[in-house]
């Protein structure tokens, strides 16, 4: 039979907040920033009500990058969720890969070989550096400092190329697997990485010299976007944002996963909880990540990278093409997915912007029953209006930059 006729034109909903009348008759103005705005990285809409240059109220509208990650995860096998995870965070995708597999491995109860753990730490820290460089560079650029941005992107590019060497992609990495990794590190990867980090350090020093004691930069950053510890806790804010208020919560230290308890590193904290402290925390974390990478490379030993269990890891191609056992193993993992016992688990790691958690539920099938991603930006963006209200309109930019919003992770 015929399809029903098209529905009547949908009613547009009035979403603007009620305008508050000024006793002197001066009108407040409502200003839209985004969803496509030169200083808005990622698509998000800020509706601010201003009185002169002062922000009286603000509202954040998210969802522009909602791509149904959680729904799509329920339609593919456990391993096929991985490409979605790196598309959720286009600045540090490797960290998202690691976070997801750790959650699923927790649910299955498998322990990956030591080399695999070291490599996961290594790639995680590389990603953390690229993430912080992006945040600092873009933040400086939007305050008029184009040179630090170029330095940051140059340094990031060294690492991106190295990541490309690892897995063939700069952003769409999908490098981890449940129970292991896509492949071992290429030959000489560690030595090259050390040389690269040396170069990255040079750029970081240059950025440091250009920005940290820069009068203009400090004027825009110090005392702007300040949050208190209580506020951070109330809103569930984690990562550099939380640490800028002086709380030294870092998942790597407080709930060590992989081998983070075997390496030596410091957790930098701020005092005031303002944009400047967040900048300093990120800058220091770049250096700490380098420390971790150096220790990882020193401690890492050759060995297997995958668990020795055909139920989770694809059989070697030699077996797939030459033995029926390998063929069936391959077939079953690809077509039906790996067997994950019924149950639920929450795996969490310290991503570049805070705690990244995955809550996975299995009903014993080859496909996830539910995958929930807890991105750190969601909580921070929720608190953003409180940070900018009462300030000047120009201060939105550095504050919003310091959130380092990853819309993919927030909207999923």
């Amino acid at each position, binding site marked *: *039979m*015929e399809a029903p006729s098209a529905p009547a034109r949908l009613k547009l909903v009035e979403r603007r907040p009620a305008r508050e009348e000024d006793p002197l008759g001066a009108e407040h103005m409502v200003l839209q920033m985004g969803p496509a705005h030169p200083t808005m990285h990622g698509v998000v809409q800020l509706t601010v009500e201003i009185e002169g240059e002062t922000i009286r109220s603000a509202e954040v509208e998210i969802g522009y990058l909602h791509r149904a990650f959680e729904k799509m995860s329920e339609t593919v096998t456990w391993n096929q969720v991985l490409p979605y995870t790196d598309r959720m965070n286009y600045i540090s995708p490797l960290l998202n890969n690691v976070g997801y597999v750790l959650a699923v491995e927790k649910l299955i109860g498998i322990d990956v070989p030591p080399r695999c753990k070291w490599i996961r730490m290594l790639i995680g820290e590389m990603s953390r550096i690229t993430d912080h460089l992006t945040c600092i560079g873009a933040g400086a650029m939007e305050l008029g400092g184009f040179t630090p941005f170029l330095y940051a992107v140059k340094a990031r590019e060294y690492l991106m190329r190295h990541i490309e060497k690892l897995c063939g992609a700069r952003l769409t990495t999908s490098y981890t697997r449940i129970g292991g990794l896509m492949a071992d590190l290429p030959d000489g990867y560690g030595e090259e990485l050390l040389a690269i980090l040396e170069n990255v350090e040079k750029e970081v020093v240059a950025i440091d010299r250009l920005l940290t004691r820069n009068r203009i930069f400090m004027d825009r950053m110090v005392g702007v976007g300040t949050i208190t510890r209580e506020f951070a806790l109330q809103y569930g804010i984690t990562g550099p944002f939380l640490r800028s208020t002086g709380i030294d919560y870092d998942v790597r230290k407080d709930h060590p996963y992989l081998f983070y308890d075997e390496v030596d590193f410091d957790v930098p904290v701020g005092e005031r909880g303002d944009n400047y402290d967040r900048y300093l925390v990120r800058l220091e974390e770049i250096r700490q990540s380098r420390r971790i990478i150096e220790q990882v490379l020193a401690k890492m030993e050759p060995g297997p990278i995958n668990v020795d*269990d*055909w*139920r989770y890891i694809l*059989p070697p191609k030699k*077996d797939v*093409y*030459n*033995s*029926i*056992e*390998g*063929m*069936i*193993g391959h*077939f*079953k993992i690809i*077509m*039906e997915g790996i*067997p994950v016992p019924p149950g639920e688990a929450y795996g969490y790691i310290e991503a570049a912007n805070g705690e990244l958690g995955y809550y996975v539920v299995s009903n014993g099938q080859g496909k996830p029953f539910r995958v929930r991603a807890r991105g750190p930006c969601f909580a921070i963006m929720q608190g953003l209006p409180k940070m900018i209200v009462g300030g000047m309109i120009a201060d939105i930019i550095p504050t919003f930059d310091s959130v380092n919003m990853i819309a993919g992770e927030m909207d999923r």
Partner: protein
Amino acid sequence: MPTLRIDGQTIEVPPGTTILQAAKKLGRKIPYFCYHEKLSTPANCRQCLVEVAKAPKLLPSCYTPVADGMEVFTASEKVRDFQRRNMELLLLNHPVDCPICDQAGECKLQDYYKAYDFKPSRLNVRPVHKPKVIRLGAKVVLDAERCILCTRCIRFFEEVVGIRPLGIFKRGDRSELGLYPGKELPHGYARNVVDVCPVGALTSEDFRFRKRVWFLEKTPSICNGCARGCNIVVEHHEGVVWRYKPRLNEAVNQVWICDDGAYSYHELNEGRLLAPRVRRDGALVEVRWDEALAAAADALRAADGGRPVGIVLSAQATCEANWAFVRLGRETLGDVHFYVAGRTDWEGDGLLKVSDRNPNTLGARLVAGEGVGDAATLLSDIDAGRLRALLLVGGHLPAPAVEAAVGRVENLVVTSTHETPIARRARVALAACAFAEQDGTFVNFQGRVQRIRRGPAPQGRSGPEWKIALRLAQKLGRDFSWTDASALFREMAENVPAFAGLAPESIGDEGVLLKGYTAEPAPAGSV
């Protein structure tokens, strides 16, 4: 009654039950290849061996009857180890061909390998090669290399069909399945061996290389090939039906289906009437539903000397559809004569296939009530010029003579799933969707009501017949409140004596016998 313990759970079963059956009752999974609940048990695959306390070695659970006080372990270390070693041996000579094997995705070798082994083989010997692509007849193809020699197919022919075309030849690891010289599989029930085969050794030429099984959606339904109404699963993907598989119903078809029925799914994909048509200037043209229904209403209303309208109910359509047209006729057209017609009979085989080729002859008659005519009275009524208009449901007529007579009726409205000859001669042809594309019920020749369910979406712009009746009634000035087939069924239960007391929910997977009908014993032979 012997009481035994299986993996710590106690169960009491009738004497003569095997360990495997008892374990199944408890929900314990024991793997097996050669055992089949409708065939004899040779216990030759050895996959179902279990540990029994005090027994010196592992026992085949499919063959060992339970004894009082028995203590069975189905998943002990010893059993798991044996299952794994057995899988290794079964896979020893298996070709590496899952990507081109039709069984892949529903293969017991794959399933059990994943569940009970999932390790690389420890054996490293040259595989024995055997013949491949042997056409056994009746569209069944054998790949002897994939065969695990479980003999299910041999037993099927011997015990169910009663012939011996297949046997195991040669000795030892060179043993292979094959046809006896000069024999081939006869058309009739041969396709069942494809379902019976636990691996990819026997495949159907009709399905081979056409569709991967994991894409198929499965909808339980009833075969519309003949009046037996064998229980089937319609397997379809993206609106196309790819095969029927038989479904267990002890009272109707056990687990078998005849070849003609199983291959009748082709009809769903060929020659369909996809849109309503109206005759304009001598030719049928596709129009919108609104226009077609208005034209149909005009044709049926054509006033002409007080002669009645004839409505031919369809033995191919569901009870609900027929009921909808019965009400339509009674409440909008006034003087109506009802007839029931369907397809031409074929020859029954005394096993499953019966001579009546329509799935719902009995249902249509019951719904129409007393005084319903058949094809013969229809012919005489037309010849005598007693009808001013004719509404033919289903688009099928049993004989060329009737077809010719019906074709002469000027005001002929036909609802049809296919472009049948009579649909081409109608004034208005309304596109109905096939049985697999709608919900409803059929009543088989034994008097058993069985449900069909909507699988693929209706093809083209076709729709279920009851919906056509609903909208045609609107054009004729009567609004019925039917929302779906279940609502119609409830209405039938109130108005048709044979259906009294039934509800769509109360018809389970096995169907329900109508009042006044007794369950026939399973048909002759052992099918």
